[in-house]
């Protein structure tokens, strides 16, 4: 769906909802993968807000992005409970394995790497989230296999 149509639909859906900007932004990003910067004027007009307010909300929250991300998002938990069981090493391994830093996307557009502060799986860390699935007790070797699976899934006929 072209994003203009999507934004119009979302304004229709959330325009009258009190405090509807966050649900709207989530809905746009869910379907479009990101919130195009070019859509900000339309969102602002539709939600009766200034463009600065919309831009301010998008930039405040870690979840929202105005540029396309990878086809998959890999989040490494870097909070204390996971640090206690080796997350600091795992972070370094993830960056090395993908050859990118936090917030970056691999050259083929497959994977975006992000930090996350707690996935609520703190008794069985280190925790990794790939898209909507959480993995427990992830060590370097397991991470390598999970990442390899993402890549091979991509290249499946």
């Amino acid at each position, binding site marked *: 769906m072209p994003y203009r149509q999507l934004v119009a639909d979302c304004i229709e859906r959330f325009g009258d909802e*009190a*405090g*509807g*900007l*966050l*649900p709207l*932004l*989530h809905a746009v990003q869910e379907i479009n993968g990101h919130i195009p910067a070019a859509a900000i004027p339309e969102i602002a007009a539709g*939600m009766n807000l200034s463009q600065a*307010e919309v831009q*301010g*909300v998008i930039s*405040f*929250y*870690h*979840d*929202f992005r105005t540029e396309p991300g990878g086809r998959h998002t890999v989040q490494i938990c870097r*909070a*204390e*409970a*996971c*640090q*206690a*069981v080796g997350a600091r090493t795992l972070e370094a391994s993830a960056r090395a394995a993908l050859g990118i830093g936090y917030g970056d996307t691999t050259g083929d557009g497959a994977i975006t790497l992000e930090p*996350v*502060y*707690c*996935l*609520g*799986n*703190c*008794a*069985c*860390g280190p*925790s990794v*989230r790939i898209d*909507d*699935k*959480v*993995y*427990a*007790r992830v060590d370097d070797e397991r991470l390598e296999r999970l990442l390899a699976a993402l890549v091979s899934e991509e290249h499946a006929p």
Partner: protein
Amino acid sequence: MTARLWVPSDTTAAALGADELASSLAAAIAEQSLPLELMRNGSRGAFWLEPLLELERDGERLAFGPVSEDDLPSLLTALQVDPRAHPLCLGDPTEIPWLAGQSRVSFARAGLGDPLCLEHYQARHGFDGLEHALHLPPEDIVDEITASGLRGRGGAAFPAGIKWRTVLDTVAGQKYIVCNADEGDSGTFADRLLLESDPYQLIEGMVIAGLAVGASRGYIYLRSEYPRAWQVLHTALGKAEAAGFLGDDICGSGRAFHLSLRLGAGAYICGEETALLDSLEGRRGMVRSKPPVPAVAGLFGQPTLVHNVLTLAAATTILAEGAEAYAAQGSGRSRGTLTVQLAGNVRRGGLVEVPFGLSLRQLLEDFGGGTASGRPPRAVQLGGPLGAYLPESEWDTPLDYEALAARGAMLGHGGVVVFDDTVDMAQQARFAMEFCAAESCGKCTPCRIGSVRGMEVIDDLLASDSKERQLALLGDLLDTMEQGSLCAMGGLTPAPVRSALKHYPADFGLPAVEA
């Protein structure tokens, strides 16, 4: 009678392979025409045993865990012949010492039934509290909450009754109930477990709160890091509404309560109640100055009761069993039960609900069973990323709000994160500042700039040969953050730093100080 095989579905069980186990089991049951009905429960929170499968037959349950894919053939055979003989058989789950040693109240139902089945909920006293509340005038419901001694479970431990009374007494056309399900503290998962295992308890608690204070609308603000809880809650809300527990006419009483689910967007600060309200209003999650408190002017400027998941859920027990029964448990001014989460480098991690007053040592030894790595434990961070690091010498402090406060520590939301002797406490102190810098809302200077300066000064302290100067600077900075920040984010970030400096000076290259 067909036996039932329960496979847990909560985030941690799933992260350990429970969904794949359920698929394999379903296929095997169909293929071999086994007399087994596959069911999905939540989780009892004994995460060290997950995936923890349970066989239910003739009203009795047998637990098996932790079960891996490789165990399935032998397990399925054993289930047909002699289940108790299987090496993974743990017997009656309620008799597993780790669970038998707990006093489950908030988590009494967790892991027993299908989280989304209303009948399962009602069969275990679900909606008893609401039933009672529907026959009481609002004043009396508030009095029950006050008499129970319930205190906020999110971290601040504020007496709930005072909040309920304030919202009730504030006149307004529209009031709100807001559930803070933005459980961002590392080492905590109690809210998530309740939402994924017993979601109707929260819904019931919020309806009771609405009836009590005169609020016809409620919001659950759930963090986006919990996709599974989102799915469960989303479905539960639909089912509760269809069954008449939400909507314009609660259980035929003619009273209305509409409940909406809202998703956060990855901002830790939105767990702070006023930042959460700003976020619900569709804005940046910025902390507000108080007063006015949200109970007087909260969401959209209206009187708003903001509580953590566990606090609202506790209202169901208090209304069902009476304030006296609730207050009868606990120690000192900490009433009811204590929910802690054993996390990090711990052998037997999970959700522990016990009477207040247990010591940290009892918790770590009796329930935790030492570190997962097998190395000596060195530090415990209590109360999330803004909580102090405690060395072994502090572990005999009883776990109640006042006793901990007297030792410069706090229970917070009950996170207990264990570290072994490989931990570098200087790096943990630095991380506290780094986390604050990443998550500060930016409204007040001590937090926004202090956290960045904090990282720099700790780096300088570690690199420096003349440590006195850097230490004086750091002390000054910590004082400024503590006294000058608008909320607990900047105000408490010094706590882990100070405790690391105090108890582990050698990690900073500092000489030991007299206690």
